């Protein structure tokens, strides 16, 4: 007899969600994480958008969970070297349930989430790095750790962006040993301790409100493409940058320098002045979409979250946590069905893929592939911020020459930057269609 119905590798958002659903439905489950304590390897922006956690844990989950602030104001900002163009959106109803998004710190939420798995009857082990899967006759039968096999009917692989188990299984053969540079972004993040009062004052909010700003980093030299973010925690700021890895090629630009340029940019410096650095970290963001992961299920296994490529970032928004929870729950339900049927074959496990395809998750990722072309594009990251800067500078300059019509200013600036109205129209159309 197998020791467990399921072993879940990785106690991030995806693994915790999967293990919780399994334990809650009475399956015997072992959740293993390499971090000690759980959460100590995990770094996110991090706003949890969407409602997968409401569905899994009940809509009151945030009352008990270590969350920071709800997002009540969202800002999108284009920065050039010395200008900022911002669009802000604020909604009073975002202050109360159902919340749009919760700002969280993962080293705090993940151990809490794992404790919920334990409460539901799951077994949780921390500080153990699973080395590989255990196979028998082409079927996954558990995991291997320090020469020992721990057996289970199914394994849910939730080991995140740097999924070593995927490599171990040969799922990355086409792309070398890791994900290809074009499918990855590097996230660098600083936690800046400011204190609750200063945060409330500078962002003009109270304790029941929070701000999520995204930035297009139009000042970066050469071909480097990066997006920034600033989120308000209870008494700290999460400040970070997301750099498209292949855009660093041949640029002689060091990644952490871009982070520092962002931190010291006048539009950011004004918020964090007087703050103290409380943590510096970095983490990979997979963003190859549906393409670079060849399989997400097989005999005795399913793959969820970042490991399965369910993360999206475009320099304006990063979304992975909700998809990790959503895919984790669907994998758990597949395992529960398989347990019921006593059949863990690839055919049975394929209902995981169907569940994903029938959900918004798959559809979102199909849509994102169009979107990628627009947003990870030099026009979006360089030309448009400069265009906006040029237009507004012209319009607000009083220099005693007759004012041109706005239309002429726009035309002239487009000519200066060598961009045609057709291209802008096309980009606006694709962006509009997908937003």
């Amino acid at each position, binding site marked *: 007899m197998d020791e467990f119905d399921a072993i879940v590798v990785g106690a991030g958002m995806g693994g915790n969600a999967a293990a919780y659903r399994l334990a809650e439905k009475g399956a015997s489950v072992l959740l293993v994480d*390499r*971090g*000690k304590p759980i*959460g*100590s*390897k*995990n*770094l996110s922006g*991090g706003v949890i958008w969407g409602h997968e956690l409401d569905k899994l844990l009940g809509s009151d989950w945030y009352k008990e969970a270590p969350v920071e602030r709800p997002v009540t104001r969202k800002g999108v900002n284009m920065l050039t*070297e*010395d*200008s900022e163009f911002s669009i802000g959106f604020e909604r009073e109803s975002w202050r109360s349930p159902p919340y749009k998004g919760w700002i969280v*710190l*993962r*080293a*705090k939420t*993940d151990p809490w989430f794992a404790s919920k798995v334990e409460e539901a009857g799951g077994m949780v082990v*921390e*500080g*153990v*790095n699973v080395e590989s899967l255990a196979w028998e006759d082409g079927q996954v039968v558990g995991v291997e750790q320090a020469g020992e096999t721990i057996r289970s009917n199914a394994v849910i692989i939730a080991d995140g*962006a*740097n999924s*070593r188990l995927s490599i171990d299984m040969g799922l990355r053969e086409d792309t*070398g*040993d*890791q*994900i*290809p*540079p074009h499918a*990855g972004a*590097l*996230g660098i993040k*600083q*936690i800046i301790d400011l204190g609750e009062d200063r945060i409330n004052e500078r962002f003009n909010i109270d304790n029941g409100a929070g701000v999520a700003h995204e930035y297009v980093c139009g000042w970066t030299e050469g071909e480097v493409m990066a997006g920034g973010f600033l989120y308000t925690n209870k008494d*700290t700021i999460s400040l970070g940058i997301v750099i498209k*890895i292949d855009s*660093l*090629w*041949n*640029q*002689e630009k*060091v*990644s*952490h*320098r871009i*982070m*520092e*340029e962002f931190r*010291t*940019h*006048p539009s950011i*410096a004004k918020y964090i002045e007087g703050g103290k650095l*409380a*943590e*510096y*970290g*970095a*983490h*990979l963001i997979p963003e190859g979409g549906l393409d670079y992961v060849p399989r997400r299920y097989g005999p005795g296994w399913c793959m969820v979250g970042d490991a399965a490529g369910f993360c999206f970032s475009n320099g304006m928004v990063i979304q992975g946590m909700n998809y990790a929870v959503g895919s984790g729950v669907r994998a758990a339900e597949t395992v529960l069905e398989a347990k019921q049927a006593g059949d863990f074959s690839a055919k049975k496990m394929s209902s995981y893929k169907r569940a994903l395809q029938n959900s918004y998750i798959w559809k979102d990722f199909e849509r994102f592939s169009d979107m990628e072309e627009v947003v990870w594009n030099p026009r979006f990251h360089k030309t448009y911020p400069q265009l906006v800067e040029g237009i507004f500078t012209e319009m607000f300059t009083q220099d005693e020459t007759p004012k041109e019509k706005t239309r002429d200013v726009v035309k002239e600036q487009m000519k200066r930057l060598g961009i045609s109205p057709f291209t802008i129209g096309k980009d606006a159309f694709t962006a509009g269609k997908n937003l």
Partner: protein
Amino acid sequence: MSLNLTPDEKVDIKALLGATSYNFDDEEHAHITITPEICETCPHHMCMYACPVNCFTLVDGVMTFQYEDCVECGTCDIVCTPGSVEWTHPRGGFGVKYKEG
């Protein structure tokens, strides 16, 4: 307004990392290693530009690596197309230890 960081101002990554906690493993269990002979013919040295914490440095033309400051992001493995970087996770419980995340 202009960038507060002047072009010749150095980023002191060691000072920034003072805020980050680790549980260091001993050198024989370093989770990443490089093969300097492969680096000798590397066309791009992208590890140096990509690593967010300066684990890679050229010392007298020879690529050197220190594992202690590594925050386990995986980027060096992705950019090292010549295949010098051997990358894995630290042993369970060792390595970077985020308190905020």
